[in-house]
């Protein structure tokens, strides 16, 4: 099995004012990476117009592009239209599902979706009390169940989980602890730890840090643009 080079970025927050500014940074990406993963918050307001800017920036790259949406991409209730626009541009958009890419004689499985919040073990919300609280936590639990299901059926040489929200606290370091429950949930990490993955990519936490680990030992990387300060970073998954 050969190695797979995964380029990743999140929180590119495109709008008309940034049209044409991101694409030049992707020049030559095919020499550095085999796939580009984009971890949500592709837009600022989640409008169709912004979705079109994102599609134009990512269209016809020489390597496959896999993306998930983020909370900003839901803001105008146009998430389905944005997903369709991106898919028309050749981007694989994951909504709590899996895709398998073949490259260099190896296969890469990517499972992902937006994810959601709730907090981290011992300091998290639970399905108790008002319906609004229960709905909040249930949303994350359902997402985690769908990821677990998608991972369990995934037959590939490497497996990467792509999220917007964080599965761990490690990569939130720098964010105010008071808002951790709005930045991620341990339920996302638990699903990946149960089924196994080589890497979890996320964004959302602009003030966080890049590197962390799940309790089960899976590497976690926060690739939000303000965190990495680059158009993307590249992680090399070595052959077994």
């Amino acid at each position, binding site marked *: 099995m050969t190695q797979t080079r995964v380029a990743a970025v999140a929180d590119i927050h495109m709008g008309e004012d940034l049209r044409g*500014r991101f694409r030049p940074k992707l020049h030559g990406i095919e020499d550095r990476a085999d796939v580009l993963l984009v971890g949500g918050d592709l837009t600022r307001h989640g409008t169709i117009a912004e979705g079109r800017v994102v599609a134009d920036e990512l269209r016809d790259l020489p390597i496959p592009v896999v993306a998930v949406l983020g909370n900003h991409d839901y803001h105008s209730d146009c998430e389905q239209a944005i997903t369709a626009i991106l898919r028309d541009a050749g981007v694989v958009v994951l909504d709590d599902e899996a895709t398998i890419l073949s490259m260099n004689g190896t296969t890469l499985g990517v499972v992902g979706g937006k994810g959601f919040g709730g907090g981290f073990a011992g300091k998290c919300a639970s399905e108790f009390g008002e319906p609004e609280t229960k709905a909040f936590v249930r949303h994350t639990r359902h997402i985690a169940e769908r990821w677990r299901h998608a991972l369990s059926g995934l037959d590939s040489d490497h497996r990467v989980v792509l999220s917007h929200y964080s599965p761990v606290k490690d990569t939130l370091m720098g964010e105010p602890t008071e808002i951790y429950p709005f930045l991620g949930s341990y339920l996302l990490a638990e699903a990946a730890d149960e089924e196994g993955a080589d890497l979890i990519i996320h964004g959302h936490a602009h003030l966080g840090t890049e590197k962390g680990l799940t309790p089960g030992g899976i590497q976690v990387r926060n690739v939000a643009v303000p965190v990495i300060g*680059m158009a993307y*970073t590249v992680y*090399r998954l070595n052959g077994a």
Partner: protein
Amino acid sequence: MDAPHYVAARVQRALAEDERTVELGIRVDVRGDKIFLRGRVSAPERRLLIEDVAREAAPGLSVHNEITLVEVREPGEEEPL
């Protein structure tokens, strides 16, 4: 006059909810008659818009815009995992 705590909260909420900004990652501190804005954005226009929205949300206070621009560098070395 509102307590500084509530002024800061009002400005932070305006930055998140105003269609011109939709910025969730800006830190707002009020000290006396000054508002300090800190965080990182990707375009100089956004930096100025955030300042405008903050000024409208807290008229009469002077806005100190300490927001920095994210300079998106070329990708560096890959990390083996």
